[in-house]
């Protein structure tokens, strides 16, 4: 097997335990070169721990994995020589300028003094940061930090990129900018493992999606396959009178997929495989005498994906995964 044709990632039975918690509990994963694999799951599902094992930052307690043909335990150095990691919390140095951050990484990867300056300028330009390259990163907005973070990950083009929740905490406009960058990377042929909490993000950017819950992969497939099992859309309905919710639930349950009662006492939602079903459902509600204050059609949220796949909404782990927590 030559390294160049081996899969980007082949992992089987990965386990990592912190204290009493099984953060990752037997994960199998296959990612082929040139594809974008999304790992979708709520906070604390084990996404970050999985990435940290594959990027050789922590050793698995059980199982094994090869990254680009290199064993993560016995050939960790070769793995590190062909990947890049963009952490969940923009892993750039706040006390340096954007330009200095890129020069630092470039020098550490072996670029010569003159070449590294040119490379930093080229990347700042491409990532829309040339105006702010001379400013300290602590003055950057969240979106600028993420873009710099991703730029730092491609100072020397890696064969595989790990992106851990690249848009968590960003406003919609910054999120779109980061998505544009990821799309550009993908069209340039990059192989990416992308962790996210957002179905929409995985749907937009990924070729395959693995849904992870409690440290296990609970569903796998293309975005189309996943949505076929979940329903491609969700109808949200707000009633005029909350006391009619039980009637509305009965009507929707008969015509549509899984019905969820929202925290708003007058709100409920239902999955559907075809948006035209929604129009019929609204008509039936009116026919049953249920007053509708408003309705909207959207993509299913992570909650609904989980409800459809597991029968329960995603449970947030008790600890939020700060880098310090994830280390322990």
């Amino acid at each position, binding site marked *: 097997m030559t390294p160049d044709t081996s899969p980007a990632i082949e992992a089987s039975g990965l386990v990592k335990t912190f204290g009493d918690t099984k953060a990752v509990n037997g994960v199998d994963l296959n990612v082929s070169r040139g594809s974008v694999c999304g790992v979708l799951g709520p906070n604390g599902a084990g996404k970050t721990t999985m990435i*940290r094992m594959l*990027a*050789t*930052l*922590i050793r698995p307690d059980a199982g094994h994995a090869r990254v680009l043909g290199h064993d993560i335990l016995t050939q960790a*150095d070769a793995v*590190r*020589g062909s*990947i*890049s*990691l963009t*952490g*969940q*919390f*923009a*892993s*750039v*140095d*706040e*006390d*340096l*300028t954007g330009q*200095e951050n890129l020069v*630092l*990484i470039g*020098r*550490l*990867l*072996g670029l010569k003094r003159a070449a590294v300056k040119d490379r930093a300028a*080229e*990347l700042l*330009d*491409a*990532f*829309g*940061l*040339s*105006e*702010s390259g001379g400013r*300290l990163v602590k003055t950057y907005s969240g979106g600028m930090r993420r*873009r710099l973070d991703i730029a*730092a990950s*491609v100072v020397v*083009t890696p*064969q595989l990129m790990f992106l851990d929740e690249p848009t968590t905490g960003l406003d919609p*406009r910054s999120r*779109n*900018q980061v998505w*544009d*960058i990821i*799309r*550009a*990377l993908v*069209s*340039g*042929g990059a192989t990416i493992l992308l962790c996210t909490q957002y179905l929409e993000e995985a749907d937009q950017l990924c070729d395959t999606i693995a849904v992870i819950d409690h440290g296990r992969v609970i569903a796998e497939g293309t975005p189309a396959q996943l949505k076929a099992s979940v329903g491609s859309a969700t109808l949200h309905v707000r009633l005029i009178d909350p006391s009619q919710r039980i009637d509305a639930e009965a009507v929707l349950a008969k015509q549509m997929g899984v019905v969820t009662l929202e925290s708003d006492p007058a709100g409920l939602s239902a999955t559907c495989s075809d948006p035209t079903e929604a129009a019929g459902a609204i008509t039936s509600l009116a026919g049953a005498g249920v007053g509708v204050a408003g309705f909207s059609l959207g993509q299913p949220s992570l909650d609904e994906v989980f409800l459809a796949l597991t029968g329960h909404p995603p449970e947030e782990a008790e600890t939020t995964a*700060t*880098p*310090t927590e994830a*280390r322990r």
Partner: protein
Amino acid sequence: MSTDLTGPATPGTTTDEAAVRKAIASTVRPSRPGPLSAALTFGWRGMLKVKHVPEQLLDVTVTPVMFVLMFTYIFGGAVAGSTGEYLNYILPGILVMSVLFNTVYSGVALNTDLTKGVVDRFRSLPIWRSAPLIGSLLGDSVRYVISGLVILAVGLVLGFRPEAGVPGAAAALALVVVFSFGLSWLFTVLGLVLRSPNAVMNAGFMAIFPLTFLSNVFVDPATLPGWLEAFVNVNPISILATASRGLMQGNAAASDIAISLAVAAGITLVFAPLTTRLYRKG
């Protein structure tokens, strides 16, 4: 190009898709830097921080300068008979204190890197795994030299004149910096074990502050109660202060220098491997 809802895009602030594609098109990997080169790059990073965040260096330097002024002019007459004589006694000790205070920040900086996630990126790079640690401490040593020079300059302005001249002062500074390099491994362990930069700072100063005061930096231990004198005499900080005084006045005892270096070497031998192990383990 991303669409801009608020008006025409400012050049230099938006992502250029074609440029991103072009930027990642080249897949030539440069050959890896050697261990020393990687460590020196981390040292350079430390220098940049002195430039961009001078407050940190200032914090730990202003306190010792205040001590020089306060102790010399308020207690000098009472403790040593005259302010000039007391300045000669206290300045080499304050040099020790000033540089030792800086070592706590080596642990604080490492913990900051950990909590901010920067360490994750460094650990995912194909470099010598101890390079970030050794390099940062090399960079910190430059900080130690700067803070020592500030104290010496303040002393000279106030009338401190080391009898052994520039070579004596340089030797004393060198000894103190070498000792601090050793001691900083203790604080890097704290930096890797404790949960926040503030916790490292508090724990660090809780240790270093009393140890500095329970030494001969400020007063001749002969004036202390017997039990305290006994402790002060074996405190390595006392021995280091005595050695640095001796070097500046040209009458240093070889044993004091040897003990100071041995303590630094001992701390390094125990805590450097421990730091490295904790750092690699993540």
